[in-house]
């Protein structure tokens, strides 16, 4: 099987689905790059190269470079979804969601419910997220908690190339609004990805690694961090199970509960800020439903309650590390 990058896996999915379904269209800033200019077309293929080649394959009517008007084009994507198209809109950095939050939160998320079930909004909003690129506070946030909170939205966070392709295909075929979050530091990671199309259902966690002493639940880029911690822990005789929820809405509660019941010790790793986050959400769920099975408090390894700093040493300290995960694990494993 071919090894592909996370970026290539996403590109695969976009090509495949644009070819399969003529109702799929794409819009976003610099999806191609060079539109309206005199030089090379598709100069960028997207700010991170994810959408390369789509212009050539499908043309400018279906692959649209937008003005810098998130509220307008995200709203247009929502309206197009209501009326027969299946748009994939891109918010370049999830931080920019502030500019168009009304169209996501009050419009797209709520059409179906407000209209008594007589509408559907098959919209995908792709956005990059996450720290590590030295881009400062407004280009580095992890905002999945905000979107997970909103009923009517689905939130998808792939951690590896194989999942990225399958989850994106699923997202495009899904009839509900999906917020599809791509960690910018994962684009170059590589893994085995089939050439054929395949979908991964939402609300289906992956057991990344089996283990019996502690369960480490990790989100997005933190899955790799958890895997690294688990490997180091293994050499110290601690067997860690690593779980990747893949989607925070819907959340695979059954698997998380089942594993917690079996193991009784949980660490949750989430790059987002700690107040009112997916980490605290999962923690509350487990504490409520697995209280008797828990042998230790649930430990959360998160960023601090601060914006993302610019200085490299500070940014690196902001992001949860394998060492931090190991420390949390050891604090509960001996109990």
């Amino acid at each position, binding site marked *: 099987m071919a090894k592909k990058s996370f970026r290539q896996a996403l590109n695969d999915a976009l090509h495949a689905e644009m070819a399969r379904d003529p109702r799929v*269209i794409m819009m976003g800033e610099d999806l191609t790059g060079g539109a309206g200019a005199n030089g090379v077309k598709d100069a960028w293929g997207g700010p991170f190269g994810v959408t390369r080649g789509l212009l050539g394959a499908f043309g400018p*009517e*279906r692959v*649209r470079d*937008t*003005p810098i*008007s998130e*509220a*307008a*084009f*995200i*709203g*247009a*994507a*929502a*309206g*197009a*979804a*209501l*009326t*027969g*198209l299946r*748009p994939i809109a891109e918010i370049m950095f999830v931080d920019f969601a502030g500019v168009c939050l*009304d*169209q996501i939160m*009050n*419009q797209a998320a709520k*059409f*179906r*419910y*407000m*209209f*008594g*079930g*007589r*509408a*559907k909004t098959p919209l995908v909003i792709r956005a990059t997220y996450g720290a590590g690129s030295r881009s400062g506070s407004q280009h580095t946030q992890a905002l999945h908690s905000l979107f997970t909170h909103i*009923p*009517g939205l*689905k939130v998808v966070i792939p951690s590896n190339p194989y999942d990225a392709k399958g989850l994106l295909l699923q997202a495009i075929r*899904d*009839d*509900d609004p999906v917020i599809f979050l791509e960690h910018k530091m994962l684009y170059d990671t590589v893994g085995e990805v089939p050439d054929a199309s395949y979908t991964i259902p*939402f*609300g289906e966690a992956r057991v990344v690694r089996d283990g019996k002493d502690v369960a480490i639940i990790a989100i997005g880029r933190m899955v790799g961090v958890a895997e690294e911690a688990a490997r180091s822990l293994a050499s110290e005789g601690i067997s860690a199970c690593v779980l990747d929820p893949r989607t925070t809405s*819907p959340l695979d509660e059954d698997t998380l509960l089942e594993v917690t019941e079996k193991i009784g010790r949980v660490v949750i790793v989430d790059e987002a800020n700690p107040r009112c986050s997916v980490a605290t959400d999962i923690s509350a769920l487990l504490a409520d439903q697995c209280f008797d099975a828990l042998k230790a408090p649930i430990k959360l390894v998160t960023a601090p309650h601060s914006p993302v700093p610019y200085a490299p040493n500070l940014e690196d300290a902001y992001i949860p590390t394998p060492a931090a995960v190991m420390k949390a694990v050891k604090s509960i494993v001996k109990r």
Partner: protein
Amino acid sequence: MSGLQLSHDKLIEVYRSMRTIRRFEERVMDEMATGDIPGNTHLYAGQEASAVGVCLHLKEDDYISSTHRGHGHSIAKGVDIDSMMAELFGRATGTCGGKGGSMHIADLRKGMLGANGIVAAGAPITCGAALSAKLLGTNQVAIAFAGDGAMNEGVMSESFNLAKIWMLPIVFVIEDNGFGEATANEHVSAGSFTRRAESYDIPSIEVDGTDVFQVYSATGEAVERARNGGGPTMLHIHVPRYYGHYSGDPDNYRTPEEKAAMRQDRDCLSIFRKHVKEVSLLDTAELDAVDEAVEAEINRAVAAARAAPFPPLSALTTDVYVKYL
């Protein structure tokens, strides 16, 4: 502008539609006092000629989006008034099963993309519907209704820009009733709406919104431009808002004199009656018969709404998604 180009039946339909809106809104105001219509509504009375004159050009599958003041647009577009009244009463038989309420009335089968509780939010959504129409090659057009207050939301300007740059089959209908909620338009809007549209190279037309024939004529130009691939137009339609911003608004920021004058001098229904009488298109008896018929329909709608069940408790959590798991 005369109504000579409209057939007899069309003229009756125009009057009937405007009259239905007027009486619907007045009746809603009455029913609110009984407590059977919960929450608040934003009444369209006075602005009828705008909704009706615009929607006269539209086919059932053409799109409109509306504002928080959406009853008039809904009725003009052909949304069933029984369902609308039931929706206001919060009943299961409402357009949205009782789950939307006044500000979220929608009927996609009639191309009605929804009233909206967020000012100006309908503009980009309508751009999206227009984009759909363009890409699917259906020759549909999309109308975004908005108020003078909406003109100062950033997303309205963004929508003008997007509509023009993408040459979308859309008409922006700005119903200027002089007030954004309780604040007069002069107090908050710089420049002019026309010049704003024209700064995007979007043709704009000033319209007296108490004259349904003027509205009809201006809309004709805009819709034709849209259907022919000519891109967006803005109609700046001046209308009176008879009631306060919302049904409980004491509306004391307007003087009794100006409010009385408004109802006297700027009543699209009496202006219509006068005009058709002048040119002998319809006679008074016919119009009075319409009044009676409308009254009966509204009575029926209210009775039906009052008798209808509330949604079951299970409806609280249904239709959040098409399919969650």
